């Protein structure tokens, strides 16, 4: 069975308050680990929904420990990005391993999402206004 986990935490914070971006807004980081496929995509979906339900709209998805992604995982990003942006936030993607980034890239996702090298860079992007990738 696929091994996958997702957890979320406040960003360690570089802004005036704990967990905040430099402009003071709070950022929630989702850490993905393992294999995100058609079986495990529902776990990721539930975690994103929980973030939204708790009022988080500035989300960073960290793929540092994500080993694999299929189109089902990419579909979850697509399902949530619009509601998050409509609520005034965004989903930034950080620290993808090359194998996983290649899948995003094959489908042109860098056109739609900010995909950056580190969690810190993703948080910084929130201070730069609306996503330039959209």
């Amino acid at each position, binding site marked *: 069975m696929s091994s996958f986990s997702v957890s979320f935490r406040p960003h360690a914070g570089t802004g005036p308050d704990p967990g905040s971006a430099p402009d003071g807004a709070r950022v929630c980081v989702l850490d993905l680990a393992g294999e995100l496929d058609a079986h495990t995509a529902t776990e990721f979906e539930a975690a994103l929904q929980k973030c939204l339900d708790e009022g988080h709209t500035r989300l960073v998805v960290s793929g540092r420990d994500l080993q694999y992604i*299929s*189109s*089902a995982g990419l*579909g979850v990003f697509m399902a949530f990005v619009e509601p998050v942006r409509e609520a005034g936030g965004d989903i930034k993607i950080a620290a993808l391993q090359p194998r996983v980034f290649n899948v995003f890239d*094959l489908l*042109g996702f860098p056109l739609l999402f900010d995909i950056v090298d580190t969690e810190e860079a993703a948080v910084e992007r929130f201070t730069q206004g609306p996503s330039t990738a959209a």
Partner: protein
Amino acid sequence: MRRCAPRLTIPSRTSQLARVRARVACWAEEAGLAEKAAQALQLAVDEACANAIEHGYGGRPDGRVEVEAAFGKDALTVTVRHRGDPYDPERYRPPELRRMLEGHRVHGYGLHLMHRLVDEIAFRLRDGASEVCLTKRRNGRHEA
């Protein structure tokens, strides 16, 4: 004597996809595919099996999906076979990705990935079963 049996049959459940990927990795190693080519084939086969489970069988868990390897001189072909609703390959059009992305389409990327990831792809109906054959050559494209 091959290390991995050349045929794997799974129930139509997405929980089985990791098993399929592990088997494809073993076949790819035996076929001498480079790491990137092996990963590309793994993903393409995963997508084909997920399509069989979710669209062919409509999510019903009582179907069967067969995955079979054929080792050629310089290529590995993996066939995914099921007896659910057939897919009509005539319906496939290379997607306008920008439009799909801008329209926030949640589905429809898997088939496109399959086309991008392998050197040859063929769909056929045989003896009442739907088959998709995915071929990766040792010196073919390395997209993922």
